[in-house]
């Protein structure tokens, strides 16, 4: 029983990060109709910026996270402007191929800049576990969990309350109608892609002290993010949160009780299972709304 609760707790912790990744990806898909294969590389770059700013330059960790979000968000804005906007009206496979190329380009650039040796960022918070009854939780993981949900809540508020958030939601529902109502769709796309990239960077920066930082760390994360988006429903903000948590818990229980070797397969089994029962994803529907 104790093990089960510990597995659920572990799954919940990693699920928060999956949700963060999924939200960024689902926003980009929902608003821009772009399948972003470089999402994991933005995650990787976020981790490397934290390594550079926090570990090498000695800037406080929380500030380093902000720098990572801003730097990678800016890269996302530039990517949208120079790479994606000019091919926006092309068939969906054109921007998809462009992001595949971008992902390998970014991984190789990181290889050149930071070399292939894995990096340790050091710890901003203690990693030694605190016993809560029979369970173990560390201040570092707790910070990651709280930060992930603060970022998610902040994003939700931004979408619901701000003028730009409303413009994003309007563009999501009907790009042409939004444009006719005076929404600058180009700016919306730029902000959305930058925002999605920044969220991936925050996820990378949050996990960097727990794991290691290396140029190819984004590849598996991209696959997991797609799993979250598909399971949650393409373009669904709450769906991404639900699917992220579900995936984290399913992986934790699967690795704990079924087989470690098939852990990564669990995400894809989950996709198949959800698509068979509910082809639009858990919270997706024909007229999806960013809510």
């Amino acid at each position, binding site marked *: 029983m*104790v*093990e089960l609760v*510990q*597995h659920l707790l*572990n*799954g919940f*912790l*990693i699920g928060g990060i999956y949700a963060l990744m999924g939200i960024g990806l689902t926003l980009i898909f929902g608003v821009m109709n772009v399948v972003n294969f470089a999402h994991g590389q933005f995650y990787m770059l976020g981790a490397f910026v934290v390594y550079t700013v926090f570990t090498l330059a000695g800037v406080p960790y929380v500030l380093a996270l902000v720098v990572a979000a801003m730097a990678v968000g800016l890269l996302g804005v530039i990517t949208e402007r*120079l*790479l994606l*906007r*000019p*091919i926006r009206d092309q068939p969906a496979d054109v921007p998809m*191929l*462009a992001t*595949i*190329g*971008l*992902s*390998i*380009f970014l*991984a*190789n650039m990181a*290889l050149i800049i930071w*070399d*292939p*040796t*894995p*990096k*340790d960022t050091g710890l901003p918070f203690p*990693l*030694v*576990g605190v*016993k809560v009854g029979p369970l*173990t939780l*560390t201040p*570092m*993981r707790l910070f990651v969990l709280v930060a992930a949900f603060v970022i998610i809540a902040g994003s939700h508020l931004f979408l619901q309350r701000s003028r730009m958030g409303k413009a994003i939601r309007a563009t999501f529902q009907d790009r042409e109608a939004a444009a006719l109502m005076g929404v600058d769709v180009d700016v919306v796309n730029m902000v959305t892609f930058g925002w999605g990239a920044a969220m991936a960077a925050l996820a990378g920066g949050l*996990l960097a002290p*727990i*794991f*290691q930082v*290396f*140029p*190819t*760390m984004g*590849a*598996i994360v991209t696959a997991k993010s797609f799993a979250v988006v598909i399971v949650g429903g393409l373009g669904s903000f709450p769906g991404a949160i639900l699917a992220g948590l579900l995936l984290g818990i399913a*992986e*934790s*229980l699967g*690795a*704990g009780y079924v087989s*470690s*070797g098939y*852990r*990564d397969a669990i995400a894809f089994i989950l996709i198949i299972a959800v698509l068979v029962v509910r082809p639009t994803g858990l919270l997706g529907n024909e007229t999806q709304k960013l809510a």
Partner: protein
Amino acid sequence: MIQTQKLARGLSAVVLATSMAACTGSPAVDQRTAMDSTGASGALGGDPILFGVIAPLTGPVADAGAYVVSGLTIGVGKINAQGGVCGRPLEPIILDGMNDPQESANAAENLITREQVPIIMGAWGSSSTLAVMPVMARHGIPLVVETSSSDKITTPGTPGFDWVHRISPTSAMEAEAMKPYLVDELGMQRVAILSVNNDWGRGAGAAFRLAIEEQGGQIVREDYIDQTVTDVLPQLTNINGSGADAIVMTTGAAQIATILKQYTELGMDQLILTTGGSNYPVAIMQLASPEMVNGTYHVMFYVPTEHALAGDPAMSEWYYDTYAENGYPEVGLGESYRGFDAVHVIAQAIELNDCSLEPESLNQALTRVEFAGLSGLVRFSEAHGHQSRPNVYLVRVDNGELAAVAADPPVEQP
């Protein structure tokens, strides 16, 4: 607008072209001209003697591949500075196998058919080496294995067995050498195995299971994780609940460091033993912390700080200094020796073959090599003349310092 679109298409093409170049089997690193940092290949006469190298230069174990290449570079530089091989400079052509079986097999095909090398060193991971071996057999080109430890590689009947000579020990050799210590000395009674899910990790898991059970110990859990896995809390939670008093880990230093971080998170106290030779404790300490590695045990084949244990202590000392002078990262020292020893084996085989690069006789010449290297005496006397038996050490880390607590063969006390 049209111009902007053209710009974007151009940018996309550049991005894709870069990507495709990274994906194909074209040389990710071609060090034909990179050998003059320690050597003097330019002063030698004759055409260079080319040989192939397959190492993971990208992917999750790219760091290990880079370390092996750094040792190889020092070795080539030393050989060339001392007059080369048969008066000709040695020159490696290094391709990236990504530690992926398919990519490694493609790299072998490229090296043999395009570069026409007479001999290859590689391909780091056991699964990759096993994928390369049939390619070597099909073309009749010898392969010198510097890292892989799956027993299958030097088991007669494995495709390509006839063309392979291995310097690194098998997992069975490691386990056999450690057998007297595991249960009786270290007190490993109830053991969990947590290893990477490939031929290397599974082979080591099976070998250590056998050794521990033969000594009266018990395996209480076996978990195999992908080499890209970073979150091991589920596995560690299970191990913690299984009543295990020790964990045997076989994977790369980076993944071991990740596991140790999460082991610390859960407040675990099981004895840790890492195996496989890609577990240099200094690298683990840099990626985790010295405190997390304190009191852990590691099976190693070369202890860089204990020169007296090497096959050639003077060479070990020279290597240690040269490695530092070249500015290579200290974390790679424990893995780099493999490339150094392997290139000397290749050089000696060519000389024993009367300077002929004819692959079949070169393969025969390998069986006559005797090289006192960093990892002990390299001599292919086991597994039907295809397997060397390097030294195996049990190393304990205390306060950031490495100390060999046992060795096979036993070190003679002065």
